[in-house]
């Protein structure tokens, strides 16, 4: 199958004009591209760079989409998809990392501070993800803001543009969403497991 820029652009346009099936086809393509780019960051040619999801998303967009054919609205839709995918990528890892620690035989290891930190982060991410789902259930807009900001790595201005909100609103909503999520995560950590 030809998966060049035209295909992705067409799928994106189809999706934006209401064809939900196009999204199903679009997601794996975007994922592959994000993944490929991320890998190249990991290898030597980009050693000097810090990995930033936002850069990945922007570059993937430039690579995949025929810039002459899409409008800004399409672009923001693309970011929404990319942020969702980023969230999924991160969460999958967090889950499997956590699962590793739970299942299987217990092996005696020397204390490793880094490993403990990662494990805790993984657990926190899972708690964050669950809390974000709950938040989204009663405040979908805040849910999207957090997804775009945190997982998509978008700036306040970009989120504002994407969701057609003022930057003040985005800032305000981000602050309270952050506080609520933080509280939920603390609660999850303290609850009987």
């Amino acid at each position: 199958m030809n998966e060049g820029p035209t295909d992705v652009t067409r799928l994106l346009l189809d999706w934006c004009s209401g064809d939900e099936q196009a999204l199903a086809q679009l997601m794996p393509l975007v994922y592959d591209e994000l993944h490929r780019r991320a890998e190249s960051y990991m290898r030597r040619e980009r050693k000097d760079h810090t990995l930033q999801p936002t850069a990945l998303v922007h570059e993937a967009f430039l690579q995949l989409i025929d810039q002459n054919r899409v409008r800004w609205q399409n672009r923001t839709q693309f970011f929404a998809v990319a942020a969702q995918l980023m969230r999924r990528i991160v969460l999958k890892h967090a889950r499997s990392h956590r699962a590793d620690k739970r299942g299987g035989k217990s092996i005696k290891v020397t204390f490793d501070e880094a490993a403990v930190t990662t494990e805790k982060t993984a657990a926190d991410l899972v708690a964050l993800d669950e809390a974000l789902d709950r938040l989204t259930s009663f405040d979908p807009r805040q849910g999207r803001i957090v997804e775009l900001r945190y997982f998509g790595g978008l700036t306040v201005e970009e989120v504002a543009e994407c969701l057609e909100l003022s930057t003040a609103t985005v800032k305000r909503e981000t602050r309270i969403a952050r506080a609520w999520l933080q509280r939920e995560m603390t609660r999850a950590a303290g609850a009987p497991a």
Partner: protein
Amino acid sequence: MTPERWQRIKDLFEQAAELQDDERAAFLSRECGGDADLRVEVEALIKSDEQDGTLLDTPVADVLEGILAAEAATPAAGRRFGPYRVEREIGRGGMAVIYTAVRDDDQYRKQVAIKLIKRGMDTDAMVARFRRERQILANLEHPSIARLLDGGVSDDGLPYLVMEHIEGLPIDAYCDRYGLSTDERLRLFRTVCAAVHFAHRNLVVHRDLKPSNILVTEAGEPKLLDFGIAKLLTPDPGETQPATVAGVQPMTPEYASPEQVRGEPITTASDVYALGVLLYQLLTGRRPFRFGSRSPREIESVICKREPEKPSTVIALDPPALDLEAEAEPPASAPSDRAPAKLRRKLRGDLDNIVLKALKKEPERRYGSVEQLSEDLRRHLEGLPVIARADTFGYRTAKFVGRHAWGVAAALLIFLSLVAGIFATAWQARIARAERATSEEVSDFLVDLFETSRPDKALGETITARELLDRGAERIERELGDEPAVRARLMDSIGLAYSKLGLYDRAAGLLSEAVDLRRRTAGGEHPSVAVSMNHLGVVHTAQGRYPEAEQLLEDALALRREELGQEHELVAESLNDLGVLKYYRELYDQAEILLRQALELRREVHGAEHSEVAYVLNNLALVLYARDRYEEAEALSGEALAMHRKLLGDRHPDVAVTLNNLAEVLRAQESCQQAIGLFRQALELEIGLLGEEHPDVAITQSNLAGCLKDEGELDEAEELYRRSLELIRGTAGEHPQLAGSLNNLAGIFVARGDHAQAEAFFREALAVNREIHGGDHPDVAKNLSNLAITLERTGDHAAAEQCFREALEINGRLLGDEDPAVLANRKRLSEFLLRRGDLGAAEAEFRQLVALERQTLESPHRDLARSLLGLSRVLLAAGRPGEAEPAFRESLEMWRQWPDEWLMRAGTQSLLGGCLTELERYAESEPLLVESHAAFEEKRTASHPSTKRAVGRLIGLYEAWGRPEEAARYRARLAE
């Protein structure tokens, strides 16, 4: 949290965050008033807001780095999935990657295929689909279906399936390679049909039948692969997809049916269509359609609008190489043993008709099942006439249904659980009357049918009726192809008649066809469309297909309001039927609102005294009865009864139904003697009016028996149950009521403590329910629960567990995990596991139960309190008192709020006390144990087991605490 409350919290947070600590406290006490929770919430948010350096402040990139490093280092070959080691990748589709693999510990090194879901496709919906596929396939054992061997989740969290690895050729390539003749192709195709039909009987639709999914082995045996997108026939209301991927349905355009490309519900008829495409291809070497481009619009337009050419006519179009579009398609297969002219002759007529019938645009005009398609091919092969033929005869009108309204009207729509009595609704009676009205317009067709096929009088009337309906349905299909309006009306009537025999599947088939026909012929908005939609909704209600029923009834209501205005009897009818549906869904608040609206409307339309008013009163009574508001229910039932008597006289079947219901309400209020009197009256009336053999008689007998059973009159109850059972067996055959009766009879044996006998009847009931509903129906689940309880008592714990689980699984699939009935199923399973001491499994179930209840119930809630108690008991029994404590405490907090729950409160306190003793927090334990002991002593006797257990815990506490004198003091009490 509701959005409104959240908005309020947000507002307060924003204002409070700007204030200094002392101002803030004053501000919050002013704003929150008595709402302590609100204040706590806002304060917690402010505290979180002030924290920094949290996860949310670190770039997610850090974690991502780790992931990518891990993922990049996993090449396919040698990768492991459980005990399987990947050899190589053999395929890659839109959603999954396929590998061959071997099992390391298998000495024969048998090859398997592993299907791994692709990253990016692993949405929750997709993962759910994978799980389901695994479940379905595990149960789908057929020589022509590739076996599922195993499944699981990979190290990086992607679900995978391990399947039998099939070596073979795609069916089209196979036919070509071996030069199969047309008849040989048909026989091979029929083997495929048998496998698909088998899957359909197990409620699995393949959805993606195409040559590459049908491999033929060296031995010439076809094997169906890739039930990857198979989905249970019944929709899964619990499945929520992210909004962005809603409506996505995987498919292959060449084999996709019109309903599939439109994203409409997919049924077995969609597989019939795909098989039609396959047959077309095997016979002609071409597919019925080609697409100019692959755009969704083009594909949809071709599939939904263009009529396929007859197979016999496309043979002439050879050679395909000249066709410019042909390049886009792989070369398809044609029978190689015949010249085009000969092949054309072979296909013309029967085979043309058969293929085109399978390829009809409208699902209901295709073959009713794959078996029918296969059967028609068999007839063709044997030179018999086939069904797929368009011949039209005349038709004449009949008053058949009208004349037989009561004979046919088994009025048996309510299934009975072990404990509940039969509560006949006036709803069926209303259907019967609507039916009579309709029948006056029904055509000669039915009279003709009735007169010409009147069987020997020795046959029971109901059986006759059913036979007639079958013939009628078949003839509508055959004879009225070009008379859509008449067809629709007859289908509607016959559909209703079927529903009264309890043949809901047939009823639903005809009624949905009537809906579609009327939509097409009368226009989507015509009131007649709403009539059929409403009927279909009622039938779906009886089938337990609640989500579909709800949709139809709501649509019918909306359409009627639109077309007929707010004040119309038919609007009231829809309100009433929707209310009854909500009753069945146990959404009693909504049911009550709808029925009250219907009542008000009917009073406006018909005046205060009218039969329609009486019916809705009756239904409303039913809802109130279910809510345990017996006095109100009794008043309404009484009003309905008085109204019926006034309008219809004392001796009328509707009077008997209402008497029956009133008696049921009295029974619920434990006025058993009074209830028995009324039941006997109703019974006498029914026998007099309808004869001893009428199904209504069976209902009342059964209810009377239930009442007698409560009174301990087990012998008379058994006798009545048996008579009612016999009657139902004789008249209705396999009917929900038969299952209900068997259940009731089983209940007698439960009451006698004869669990072996009870088990036998429960099993028979289950077999009947399965026969009627297939595997998936709330009645089947209910039945399984009853059986499980009995099995537990007979000591067959393994079988009991299986039944509990199956009940949960069925209801979960039908109603979604959050449905009250499903929560109750999970509760039963969890508590069973706890009793059985399977602590690991019990913990898992209780945790899930608690999580679901937290989502769905308003806390505090008795069910949640109970589940928390269960969870904490499991943890305590597992020797984890530290984890048990918070759950005990949460549960106890809830029980404290309800004064009438003193027993649960004291019990929980006592258990928590024991838990704290184990944690060596004796000082905290003591007051709890003392208080609960006092409660038991006050309300129970000193020798009651609960009181003794409480004393036992006190002894345990003082012994552990090193206070032997007190322990001895309590021990002395125990000895008393």
